[in-house]
């Protein structure tokens, strides 16, 4: 039978591990294909991302963004929704963060600006998820398609605003003016003694990201709303039986999801770039899909997956420096392979494992 039972550790441990190994194995083949040594590449990658303080700092900086976009995808997953629009929601979220920073940075210290920036990023990100959510809930328009469309609409909107409306006066660059100190989050390097993180941009957003992880965990597994979200995602019929409104859950979940994506801008805009600039999301919204898939939509898993991808991005940069043949595009390839094996081919190894385990478990002669 197809729905064979497997031990829990196989379903939650062995299968994801096999999928990941398959993804990295094929990645190794790609490295071989371009004439480099995969083992050497792994070594450079590991050293570049974890071998010294600055490398770790950059790894964590990347991971911060991935935690936010990963949480965005994961929250929606729990309600059975596929939010592929994290990219656009993060981009528009940047606008909210920038508005707060531009309005306040000259008058107040950063810790006064921060709550407004967080609210702005979350609000704008959520707003960008609202229309797709509403259309899905009330008119049945497929949320995958509408969120893709909203990524592009968001990109056009932001392009227009940055070029024609809020660009720094007298500049041809599609970006706002640089924030003053009141619009800049402190770097972690400045908060801890010594110079551990070097010039890396890891900043206070990491703490905010970890707080969000906790909040999402609490929301999903400890609140009544989270209970409703999970019920709706796992069994929509049972949700109706339990008196849960599908419309309300769809919209509320997507708002939370969009808000999480929007907060990614805190790290990039307020934490690192200190100005709103064109295409600052740079595909990190899509990475959230890989992070959420790998992290099995659990905050702890997401933190681990985000660090892994943070390593890939930082180590990959180092790798492309050491081995020019292996450009940073290698990271995109690995990402694609992870999504392929951990997501689309999730169950590829399962039938074989079911056979293996039922074979091992069943006494001989019972095959009849």
């Amino acid at each position, binding site marked *: *039978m197809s729905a064979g039972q497997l031990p829990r550790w196989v379903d939650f441990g062995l299968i994801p591990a096999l999928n990941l190994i398959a993804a990295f194995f094929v990645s190794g083949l790609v490295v071989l294909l371009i004439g480099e040594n995969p083992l050497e590449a792994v070594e450079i990658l590991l050293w570049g991302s974890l071998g010294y303080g600055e490398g770790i700092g950059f790894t964590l900086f990347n991971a911060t963004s991935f935690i936010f976009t990963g949480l965005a995808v994961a929250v929606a997953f729990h309600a059975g929704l596929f939010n592929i629009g994290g990219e656009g929601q993060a981009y528009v979220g940047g606008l909210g963060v920038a508005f707060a920073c531009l309005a306040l940075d000259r008058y107040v210290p950063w810790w006064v600006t921060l709550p407004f920036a967080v609210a702005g990023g979350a609000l704008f990100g959520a707003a960008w998820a609202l229309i797709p959510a509403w259309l899905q809930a009330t008119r049945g328009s497929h949320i995958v398609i509408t969120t893709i469309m909203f990524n592009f609409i968001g990109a056009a909107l932001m392009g227009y605003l940055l070029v024609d409306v809020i660009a720094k006066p007298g500049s041809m660059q599609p970006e706002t003016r640089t924030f003053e100190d009141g619009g800049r989050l402190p770097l972690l390097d400045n908060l801890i003694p010594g110079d551990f993180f070097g010039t890396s941009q890891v900043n206070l957003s990491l703490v905010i990201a970890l707080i969000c992880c906790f909040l999402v965990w609490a929301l999903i597994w400890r609140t009544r709303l989270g*209970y409703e979200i*999970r*019920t709706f995602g796992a*069994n929509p019929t*049972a949700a*109706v*039986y*339990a008196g849960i409104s599908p419309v309300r859950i769809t919209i509320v979940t997507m708002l939370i999801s969009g808000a999480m994506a929007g907060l990614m801008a805190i790290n990039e805009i307020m934490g690192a770039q200190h100005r709103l600039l064109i295409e600052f999301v740079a595909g990190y919204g899509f990475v959230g899909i890989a992070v959420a898939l790998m992290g099995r939509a659990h905050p702890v898993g997401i933190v681990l997956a985000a660090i892994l991808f943070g390593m890939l991005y930082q180590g990959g940069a180092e790798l492309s420096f050491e081995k020019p043949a292996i450009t940073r595009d290698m990271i995109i390839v690995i990402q694609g392979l992870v999504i392929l094996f951990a997501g689309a081919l999730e169950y590829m190894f399962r039938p074989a494992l079911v056979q293996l385990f039922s074979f091992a478990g069943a006494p001989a002669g019972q095959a009849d």
Partner: protein
Amino acid sequence: MTPAIELRKINKSFGPVHANKEIDLVVEKGSIHGIIGENGAGKSTLMSILYGFYQADRGDILISGEEVSIADSKTAISLGIGMVHQHFMLVDNFSVLENVVLGAEGSARLAGGLSKARKELKRLEDDYELRVDPDALIGDLPVGLQQRVEILKALFRGAEILILDEPTGVLTPAEADHLFKILEVLRDEGKTVLLITHKLREIMAITDTVSVMRRGEMVATRKTAETSMEDLAELMVGRRVLLQVDKKPAQPKEKVLVVDGLNVVDSRGVKVVKNVSFDVRAGEIVGIAGVSGNGQSELLETLAGIRSASKGTVWIDGELIDLEKRDVNAASMRQKNMGHVPEDRHRMGLVTSFAEYENAILGHHNDPRYSNGMLLDVAGIKETARMEIEKYDIRPPNPLLKTANFSGGNQQKIVLAREIERDPTVLLVGQPTRGVDIGAIEFIHKRLIELRDAGKGILLVSVELDEIRALADRVLVMFDGSIVGERAPDADESELGLLMAGVHGEAK
């Protein structure tokens, strides 16, 4: 004469379920052969084996005297077997003609095949009085005509044997009568018809021979002319030992549930509950008997607030509830102290991927007893779950275990415990012991009687007549969306069976 179909010792299991046991069957050419049995008796499985949808684990199939192996539907079709499935296998946005030729187009280009098919369709129409507009879209046709297209599909492929699986389930009585005329014409033209049904009236009206299946076994084959409905009803149900439930006579008190003129229309626009009125008193169990698909499920779901009614009123404990209103939902009905054990625990009553304790509050998660403001009181919920596990002897006694890993009986106890322990005024119960082992059945029955004796009103829907007779204090029989009669639970079994089959019914 060589029989059209001969089955020898057919066996088929799905996991632990032995759906077909040592089935022997002989179907004469040019006859209408009925196969009758209760839900889950194994009729559909047997026919799916014949049509190549499943392979038998063991046994032989002979078609016109020749042993064959039917690996897929394609083989079945080439052997001259056609099947009209219970759920039509039609493409809604295709025309009749396109549906008929699908898979038998003739050539790579459609034009030739289509015009040939149009002629052939015309001939079939004339020969068998199967009139349908070949250019009409399937989605625009009433179900009766859609079924006719299914028959045409089979005949177009040269079917000599036609299997119909519960063909009248979706038809009005007039449409059903028309179908029977068509089947008679087919027989007179030399075709063999296999009719799968659980309706006695149809068997008596149309078949030449009838075989009875019960719990995966073929228990009898009779000439229809030499048997009677009573006879068949008994064969179908079997002389089962009545489940003994220790119960005192009921002491009904005030009316806690009153249903007046309830009508429900389903998503297809079909009226599934027709003008149903009844009441349930505190301290009694009212059973609704009937073959599944006669509106009981919809009735139950409407009272639970899951479906909305098109017309009708309901009083719970004297309070009027307007079921047509939009703000009625499962949560608002629960607030009126209406408990609900749904018919299908997997689809509706449980989230099987949740831990046991999480299912202990499904539908009651907004109850202040289980929450602190926005937060769930997880410790309290686990405590409640533990208490219920102990009280209902749910095994294994682990509230953290994933619900899917409990046996059917224990899963049902989880649902039952949840709904009973919320102390409902009225409890709606659907199929409480479906897929449940004997031990758990006894336990569940006892609990329901206890609840009754505690002065609650219980509305019980079950397709198991035994269960209704064992538990209910009054029995209402539902047929085709209406309540066709009320009987005492110790009424003659065959009389109840006939009512359930839509015979002797006097619709209220």
